[in-house]
Every structure is written in C-alpha cells, then in structure tokens.
C-alpha cells in the first residue's frame, strides 16, 4: 500500500475532484471569518445573487480592529465600527454563528476555535487570515486564504488549490530551562529563513514537539507562515484528545470514542516520503529574539547581530535597510538594548499558559519604569481564567494591567499602536516595518523573554533575571 504522510491523508480525503493540469477542488470542513477580510466577500456574493451554502460550517468573531478597552461602549473609530456592524448584519442575514464583542466566547479567531472544540483532528479549516495555520496543532490542514476564496467557501464550501509539497521538521531532545515553544519556532525560522518553506506544508515531529502542550503546539503551527509555509501540522495524540475532551463542540459519549479511534489513524505512515526534511536538536535551542524586519532575522538573545560579511548586492542592501529601520548596527550585541514597550498577546501567544508564564515570572518583581506594557488576552475565556487563577492580581501588583481581548498591537489596526521609533518586544508573530504602528520597531520573543524585558527595561535573557 502507498505510504502516506498525515498531510496526504487529510488532503486526499477532501478532494471533490481534480482539474486536469490544474488545482484540486478542495472541500472545507470549517470556515472562520472576521470583520476585515469578509465584507467584500459577502458583497460580491450578493452581487452574484448567491447565498451561503452551508452557514453551519462558518463561525465568526470580530477581532482584528476591535479596541481592547471599553468594549462595552460603542467603537469610537468610525471605519472599525462599520466593519464590526457589517459583520453582525452579514452573520444575521446568512445565519452564521457569531461570537460578538463582549459575549462569553469572544476573542481572536484562532484562540476561540480551539477553545470551543470547533477545531478537530482531520479537518480542513480556512480563514481569511494567514495565521489560520494555528489550528494545524490538532492534526488538521489549516491555512489562510484571500477574500476571493472566502467568497468561494461561502458559495460552495470549496476552494481551488494546488496541493503543496511536503516538508517534515523534526525536533528531538529536551528543551533547556527558560526555553519555550516560541523559541523553537523562532529558531527554526532563523535557520531556514522567512521564505525557506514557501510552497510547502510542514509537519512538525520529534520528541521535543510531542512533549509540548496543545497551547505550545499552537504557537509553533501559528508561525509556519512566517517561513513561507502554507501551514503546519502536528499529528494528534493523547495530549490532543485530553485537550478536546469535554469542549463545547467536541463529540460526546459514544461519538467521542468513535472520533478518537478515527483520530488515532491520523499519523504519517512509517516510510512515507517528504519532499524536504530538517532535523534539529532541542538542546541547541535557547531564548531567541529577532533583530530585523522579518521573522527569519532571529538570533539567540546572547548572540550578536550578524555582520555583513559574505553579503553582497541587493541582499546586503536589503539587510542594511532593515537594520537601519531598527536602528541597529551589524555585529553589535542585542542584549542590553533599551526597550520602550512590551506586548503580550496575539494568536501566537495570547493564551492562558502565556499569561500564566508571564505572571509567574513577574510575581514579586516590578515592571521597569521605562516600559509601557500591554497584556492582551486572546479571548474572554482567557481573561476569565486569568481572573479566576489570581493572575490579574499578581500582574497588577507588579505594575501590569490586563486589557480586553483582540488582535491589538500585533497588527495595530485599533488604537494599540507603538509610537514611531520606539522599541517593542512582543510575543506576536511579525516584526515587519510598521507592523505595530508606523515607524514602530518590533522584536519578537517568547512570553518569558518579554516578561524579563518588562522587568529589566532592556533586552534580557530570562535565565539571567531573578
């Protein structure tokens, strides 16, 4: 029998038909939508006079542009308000489940999907957002799509896709103290570059990945897109099943047993061939931080910013342009650089484990005076747990305040913008120019490293801060 990868198994089960010399007609099990990439799709649908074919397969939440304070009040920004209102109208008109601002399960789309048990192994999941790859942590094929494709899913529950090539990244061994899954993925991207997995779908494997919690796995799959991959996935196991058991939309009773039995088959066959393989040793991974303007520009906190030795032409020019934007010089140490802002949140690291990690670290310490800190939970559920577990109190005693859920300063569509020229160390996923506000300088790191920076006021290795 043909040896198949996990990706093959899920993909092949969702092909309605293959167009000769063209893409596959690919069936989508679950579709998440938000206020920013859906309105034009709805508009075009109406222009065509077509309805939503399976509204029960789509779930909506406003997350990208929403304010993270005073969510009970009317949104001040007119355009943001219009987008959120349009989402409400469209969901109402097309009978789509909406987790609205202020409701019990409101939050970042990639945080609430797993929380509610909507995300399940073996599924195909899309959303008009490139970090849809997050859901791959459950052994699902999940990836971001454009608005034209959002419209296709509404109209036909399918999109036209050429099957990606397959890559496996194996991380074996044990992570050191103070090293987390964010460091793993920043390390991988630094090794293979921001475009190194373009054209591929990645399976993460190995003992270091197996040992991770679901939330930590989500952080890794989330950033697959940052090395160009369409998505990333991890085979489901007991950790996955334990996470999903009892969730609102998870199967119940006999159905649960049946589902788990099926999910156990979602493994790459021994001997299945990948188009590309990488192997890394967990022991070599240390706290990471980015210094440039794409997520591939990352180093260990203890290292120096790379020199320009061996670079030439447009490569060197682009590198220096990037460092110039950041206000850094080639070859200098990153540790000890002054920081102005820290941001904990986003679909990468806005889950309860992340808030816990930060709270545990800052307990009994104080935020540095030069730091403005924004801690933004990924969802109402995360916010609620942070209160229940006493984390909010710990954070407040250390000088931090928890805001309300949303994408916030990760992409700065709302008012949470880092001022021009300021340095922000963020748990989010992109350090592009202006990503966190025009002129803002972003350094990506793990929640633990961000907590250390918040306390010292400068770039620090969390293992050296007590």
């Amino acid at each position, binding site marked *: 029998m043909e040896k198949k990868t996990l990706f093959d198994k899920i993909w092949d089960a969702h092909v309605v038909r293959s167009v000769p010399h063209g893409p596959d007609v690919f069936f989508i099990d679950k579709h998440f939508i938000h206020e920013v990439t859906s309105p034009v799709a709805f508009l075009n649908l109406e222009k065509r006079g077509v309805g939503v074919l399976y509204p029960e397969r789509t779930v909506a939440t406003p997350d990208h542009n929403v304010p993270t304070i005073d969510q009970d009040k009317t949104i001040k920004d007119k355009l943001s308000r219009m987008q959120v209102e349009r989402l409400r109208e469209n969901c109402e008109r097309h009978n789509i489940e909406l987790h609205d601002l202020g409701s019990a399960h409101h939050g970042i789309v990639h945080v609430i999907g797993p929380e509610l048990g909507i995300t399940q192994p073996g599924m195909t999941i899309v959303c008009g957002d490139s970090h849809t790859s997050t859901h791959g942590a459950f052994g699902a094929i999940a990836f971001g799509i*454009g608005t034209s494709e959002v419209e*296709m899913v509404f109209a036909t529950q399918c999109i036209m896709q050429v099957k990606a090539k397959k890559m496996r990244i194996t991380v074996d061994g044990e992570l050191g103290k103070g090293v987390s899954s964010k460091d793993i993925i920043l390390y991988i991207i630094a090794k293979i570059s921001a475009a190194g997995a373009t054209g591929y779908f990645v399976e993460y494997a190995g003992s270091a990945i197996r040992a991770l919690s679901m939330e930590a796995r989500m952080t890794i799959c989330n950033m697959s897109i940052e090395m160009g991959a369409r998505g990333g996935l991890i085979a489901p196991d007991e950790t996955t099943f334990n996470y999903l058991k009892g969730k609102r939309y998870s199967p119940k009773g006999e159905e649960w047993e049946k589902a788990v039995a099926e999910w156990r088959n979602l493994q790459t066959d021994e001997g299945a061939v990948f188009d590309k393989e990488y192997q890394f040793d967990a022991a070599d991974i240390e706290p990471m931080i980015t210094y440039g303007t794409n997520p591939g520009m990352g180093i260990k906190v203890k290292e120096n910013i790379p020199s320009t030795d061996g670079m030439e032409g447009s490569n060197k020019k*682009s590198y220096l342009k990037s460092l110039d934007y950041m206000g850094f010089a080639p070859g200098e140490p990153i540790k000890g650089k002054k920081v102005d802002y820290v941001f904990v949140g986003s679909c990468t690291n806005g889950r309860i484990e992340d808030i816990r990690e930060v709270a545990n670290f800052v307990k009994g310490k104080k935020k540095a005076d030069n730091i403005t800190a924004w801690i933004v939970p990924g969802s109402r559920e995360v916010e609620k747990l942070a209160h229940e577990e006493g984390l909010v109190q710990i954070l407040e005693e250390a000088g931090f305040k928890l805001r309300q859920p949303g994408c916030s300063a990760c992409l700065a569509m709302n008012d949470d913008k880092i001022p021009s020229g300021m340095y922000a160390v963020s748990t989010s996923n992109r350090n592009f120019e202006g990503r966190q506000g025009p002129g803002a300088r972003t350094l990506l790191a793990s929640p633990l490293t961000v907590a250390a920076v918040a306390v010292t006021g400068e770039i620090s290795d969390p293992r050296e801060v007590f």
Partner: protein
Amino acid sequence: MAYDKFNILKSTVVPLPTENVDTDQIIPARFLKATEREGFGDNLFRDWRYDVEGNPKKDFVLNDPTFSGKILLAGKNFGSGSSREHAVWALYDYGFRCVVSSFFADIFKNNCLNIGVLPVTVSAEFADVLFEAVENDPSTEVEVDIEKQTITLVSTGASESFDINVYKKENMKNGFDDIDYLLNIKDEITEFAVNR
C-alpha cells in the same frame, strides 16, 4: 468578481528591487478598514511612499516620474506575510496588471491569480537582466505573453518562459474566476458534502 482578460501586455516597468517585501508594506493594516474593494491604490506602499505628514518621499520609486507602467518588477520573496487580498487590490487599483519576481510568497501568488494580476516568476539571472535594463533606461518595455508563457525584454529580445497551470492560464485569458467553475459543479460538491 470577474476581471479584464489578460493576453499580451506590453508596458514600461516600475522597478522595486527590495527583497522580502511583505503585504504589510504593500498595504498597511490600518488601511484595511474599507468594506468595498475599490480605492486601495491610494495607499499602496503607503509608508514607503509618504512620510508621517503625508508628503511624498522623493526617493521612493512610485514618486519618481521617470518610472511608470503596468508591470511591477519586484525583489525576491515578494508578498510574504498576511493573506490580505487587499494587497493585490491595491496593486490592481494603482494600475499594475503584472508582477515579476524571482520568488513569490504562496498566498500572495494565489490572490493575484484570483483577481487577474499575473504573477510571473523568472530566474534570478533574468530578474537581474530586467532590473539593469529598466534602471539604465526607464523607457524600456517588457512584453508578457500569457499564451506563449514568455516574458521578453523588447529592446534586446532577451526572453524567458514562465510557468502557469493550464487551468489558471485559461481563466486569466478569459477573465473567469474560480467561483464560476465551482458554482457549475455545485451538485457534485453537495453530494460530496453528505459524508463530511
């Protein structure tokens, strides 16, 4: 959303050799608040094109009157990051119908094909030839022929072929989009969905 048919495009070229241009540069997130598709061209490359006061930055290529045209010649790994189709809408709205690069990000490339902007992947060597020709003489024309799948530097005849799958090629030539195709096989899809 059907778009104009694409057959042969002969045009001068706007060169942007910067590598790893992400979609946040093409259209920053704060301009994604529209609920319609038109008008994004005004904010194309906003923060590279204008300073904080809104004055044009003289050294950016879109503000340089010597360069114009319907073809954008871009550096390696163009369109990385966010899946926002708005990035392609902005390019289209500004007047670009074709982007040439030695390497495209995946989702961006798909989005281009879905709204009728042709992404042409060339070899790194041919990209260098094009950059040099255009930077030396801004009136240089490039011809992109989708039927023959060729891109040619008109002045010298230097040419290279590019890949595009047959299905997408026919779509581009006829101005069709995927939804037309999918709606035509809706019965097959609903039958498939019964077991999902």
